[in-house]
């Protein structure tokens, strides 16, 4: 007989962004219990994590346990002892008699043995035993204690637990909360205590204004948004889905006069501070409207709408006040103020940083616009608007620079300075912006590494990984011809850090195969544009039938050369010219002639001709000849390897054979 299982962990409000990962963790922990089941479903609202499984056995299957006793030849006392032990295991229901014990023949001889029937344990007992340990192991980025210093830790206090297997409660206790069959409805619209069964659980919750399924809450919001020109924002939608148990949208309005403020500012206020969707007009500009998502079923008297409108009005008024105050001093007049803004305690002020950025921009070949942008770059940190809306740094500077008449390349460079903010984000839109953004990021990386602020493990407080990733993306996608190694100031640690980021970019972002990335990087990784070009060539070459066999041959050549080097006591062989007179006619001479013919040509054009010659050479020629021919052959192979290793170290290619 199979039964359904329901576990609901009732908590105080869990941070929305942690919920999906917590459910994945709960699923994994449940699977690890290895209780057979047909299906598992996970659901959550801010106040509950729910796992439902179908088709669990009521009890585990029975099993047999074989107990091996003393050897048949053992002294009688030992055998009697074994009999007593068995008696205590089986209890008084059955008398264990020596003569009844079966004898088992093993490779070591004959032994007394006993087969014990072990009845399967009830699944309820297994769950009751496992769940108190399982629940606190659900993975959250940050946890708290609430019952006292030595109490259990969880993301937020656990207030109730529903644990049902079929019709039975799975009994256990955690943090003073006993499991049961009582859940809780919506804080304001539902009952505080609701008795549920595994079959009516979801429906009962719905009766009490809790939509259990995130998918359904998402659909409810999306349906209500239909017909409104809402600016699509999936991340905000996700936040709202996990911030509500019964989401309902309302449309609010704001005064048209606020549309004089830049859309970036208005959208940031609405999105980041109020979690509102912004609404567009039919021409793609902002409409004086917003959509808020409530955690309640309706707003019949308009209280919620008017409340939100007032809050937004106050916020917009603040923003306008800051915008107007900031205009009283131009960005260019704020440079000296950067002496009072810390970049980092060990690294001084933003004035210092700006000076370094200007120098780097010059080194990178930036023109007058780039240098002007570098000077203005960080000035918006002293503005009221950025102090209030820190997420708008850069953008505000760009907007002010535009208003204050800076040329387009300059204000755009300031505006785009933090791009790309992720690997999905675009790089700065113009060349001036790319140079400036590059200089800013490189400076942060160089300076932080210089004073030992490099990331450790998952800790990366200065977002240096993102900065380095941004450098790689800008250089490659901006087609910038520069030598990265010259910009890393011989910092070995930083160079290794970049190696990782470059590998990640080409492999995980661009989708090149890992061995191709390794092969191409082994032939140089300082000029990223060149590296990208070589990677594309290798990718194309790979489809050729000659590629992998040739790569295997290159690997063989490398091994032969390395063995030869270690054979001579690690001494590098003196560079030698190929002595044509020592070449034997046949495969060796043929390979040499082929090499002479194709040297200097791209490998793509010659791979088909080269490969058979190499194969025949290895098939017929013994490199380790007992005389001067050996050295001559090694030289031939090493020359061949060098000729084609400028594109990649092909021995890094992982071949099928």
């Amino acid at each position, binding site marked *: 007989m199979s039964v359904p299982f329901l576990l609901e962990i009732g908590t105080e409000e869990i941070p929305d962004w942690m919920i999906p990962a917590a459910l994945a963790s709960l699923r994994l922990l449940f699977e690890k219990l290895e209780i057979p089941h047909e299906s598992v479903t996970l659901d959550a609202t801010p106040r509950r994590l729910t796992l439902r499984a179908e088709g669990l056995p009521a009890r585990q299957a029975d099993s047999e346990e074989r107990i091996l006793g003393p050897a048949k030849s053992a002294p009688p006392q030992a055998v009697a002892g074994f009999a007593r032990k068995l008696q205590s295991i089986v209890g008084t229901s059955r008398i264990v008699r020596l003569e009844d014990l079966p004898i088992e023949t093993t490779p070591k001889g004959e032994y007394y043995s006993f087969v014990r029937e072990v009845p399967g344990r009830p699944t309820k007992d297994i769950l009751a035993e496992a769940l108190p340990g399982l629940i606190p192991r659900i993975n959250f980025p*940050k946890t708290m204690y609430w019952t006292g210093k030595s109490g259990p830790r969880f993301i937020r206090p656990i207030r109730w637990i529903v644990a049902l297997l079929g019709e039975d409660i799975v009994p256990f206790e955690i943090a003073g909360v006993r499991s049961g069959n009582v859940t809780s409805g919506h804080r304001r619209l539902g009952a505080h205590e609701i008795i549920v069964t595994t079959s009516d659980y979801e429906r009962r919750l719905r009766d009490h204004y809790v939509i259990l399924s995130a998918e359904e809450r998402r659909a409810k919001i999306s349906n209500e948004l239909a017909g409104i020109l809402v600016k699509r924002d999936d991340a905000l939608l996700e936040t709202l889905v996990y911030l509500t148990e019964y989401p309902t949208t309302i449309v609010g309005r704001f005064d048209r006069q606020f549309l004089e403020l830049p859309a970036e500012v208005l959208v940031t206020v609405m999105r980041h501070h109020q979690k509102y969707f912004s609404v567009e007009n039919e021409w793609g500009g902002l409409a004086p409207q917003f959509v808020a998502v409530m955690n309640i079923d309706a707003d019949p008297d308009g209280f919620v709408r008017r409340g939100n409108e007032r809050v937004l009005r106050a916020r917009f008024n603040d923003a306008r006040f800051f915008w107007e105050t900031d205009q009283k001093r131009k960005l260019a007049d704020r440079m000296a103020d950067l002496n009072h803004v810390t970049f*980092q*305690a060990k690294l001084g002020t933003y004035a210092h940083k700006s000076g370094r950025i200007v120098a780097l921009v010059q080194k990178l070949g930036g023109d007058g616009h780039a240098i002007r942008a570098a000077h203005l770059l960080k000035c918006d940190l002293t503005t009221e608007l950025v102090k209030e809306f820190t997420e708008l740094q850069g953008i505000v500077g760009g907007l002010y620079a535009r208003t204050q008449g800076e040329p387009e390349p300059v204000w755009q460079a300031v505006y785009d300075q933090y791009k790309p903010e992720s690997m999905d984000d675009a790089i700065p839109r113009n060349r001036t912006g790319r140079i400036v953004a590059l200089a800013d990021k490189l400076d942060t990386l160089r300076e932080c590494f210089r004073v030992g602020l490099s990331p450790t493990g998952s800790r990366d407080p200065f977002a240096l990984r993102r900065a380095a990733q941004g450098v790689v993306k800008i250089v490659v996608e901006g087609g910038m011809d520069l030598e990265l190694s010259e910009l890393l100031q011989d910092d070995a640690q930083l160079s290794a850090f970049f190696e990782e980021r470059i590998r990640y970019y080409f492999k995980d972002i661009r989708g090149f195969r890992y061995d191709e990335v390794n092969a191409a990087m082994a032939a140089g990784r300082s000029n990223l544009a060149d590296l990208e070009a070589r990677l594309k060539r290798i990718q194309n070459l790979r489809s050729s039938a000659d590629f992998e066999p040739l790569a295997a041959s290159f690997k063989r050549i490398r091994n032969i050369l390395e063995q030869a080097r270690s054979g001579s006591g690690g001494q590098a062989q003196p560079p030698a010219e190929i002595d044509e007179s020592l070449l034997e006619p046949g495969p060796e001479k043929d390979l040499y002639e082929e090499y002479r013919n194709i040297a200097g040509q791209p490998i793509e054009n010659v791979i088909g001709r080269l490969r058979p010659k190499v194969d025949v050479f290895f098939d017929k020629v013994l490199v380790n000849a007992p005389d001067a021919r050996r050295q001559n052959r090694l030289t031939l192979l090493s020359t061949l390897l060098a000729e084609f290793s400028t594109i990649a170290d092909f021995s890094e290619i992982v071949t099928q054979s």
Partner: protein
Amino acid sequence: MLSFQQIIFKLKEYWAERGCIIQEPYDVEVGAGTMCPETFLRVLGPKPYRVAYVQPSRRPADGRYGDNPNRLFKHSQLQVILKPSPDDIMEQYLASLEAIGIDLRKHDIKFEEDNWESPTLGAWGIGWQVMLDGLEITQFTYFQQCGGIDLDLVPAELTYGLERLSAFLQVKDSVYDIEWTEGVSYGDVRYLDELQYSVYNFEAADIPTLWKLFDLHEGEAARLLAAYDPKSPGKRRYPLLAAYDQVLKCSNLFNTLDARGAISVTERVGVIQRVRKLAVGVAHAWVDQQWGMPPGLPVEEEAAAQ
């Protein structure tokens, strides 16, 4: 419509009915109700405690000369501490909103993650900002650590922003228009505080004098802490409470100097550390004095490098 002072009366009465001592504001200037000894020291140790008080809280940098309708140099917090936190704390909190006339069936309440932290007090907690129709009205925190010490009992701290709450209830766009009591506006009572302290904090405060005062108060706190003897039989009469007042003075002077633009980049982190060291020192001595627990070594976290 409830006046500003009626809202305060109602909330105090509500929490008094739930076992809170009603305290009056502390008489040393502070930046938040959390800093008062009624919170900072009382949350330490194993003794349950419940208290509520209104604390005028000074934030020199937030002053706007009385011009900004939403920003104040000195705002009023209703601070509630329930130690240990009762299991139904959320329900109790929501009912307190109903007690001041908010019909929760008709409004939208959300609890959004907001973990509170005070580097100068070596204190932090886990919690939410409570949003009412999009307006943050309360900070709700489960304290985890105070003065660098893990707390034995976890208190719930509720901090109501009284001006915001009142403006919401009275439907006012400016805090200065809040009705304090019939015929008297918030502006009538507080406008001059806002104007004059803004002038003082941003323009008139004498920087060398404030630094001198900072050093004096710091010196006095440090002197008292250094002379505290955990082995002394008469340690219960040792004036740690007075030492803590000196720490509060330092904190307020730091905030004023900061608003005055007198704290340079390199100094800032250092000054926070100086205040923190004193606050942590008082907390550890206090735990020893009250419960004879080994104070342990103050945990010096990584200097707030950012």
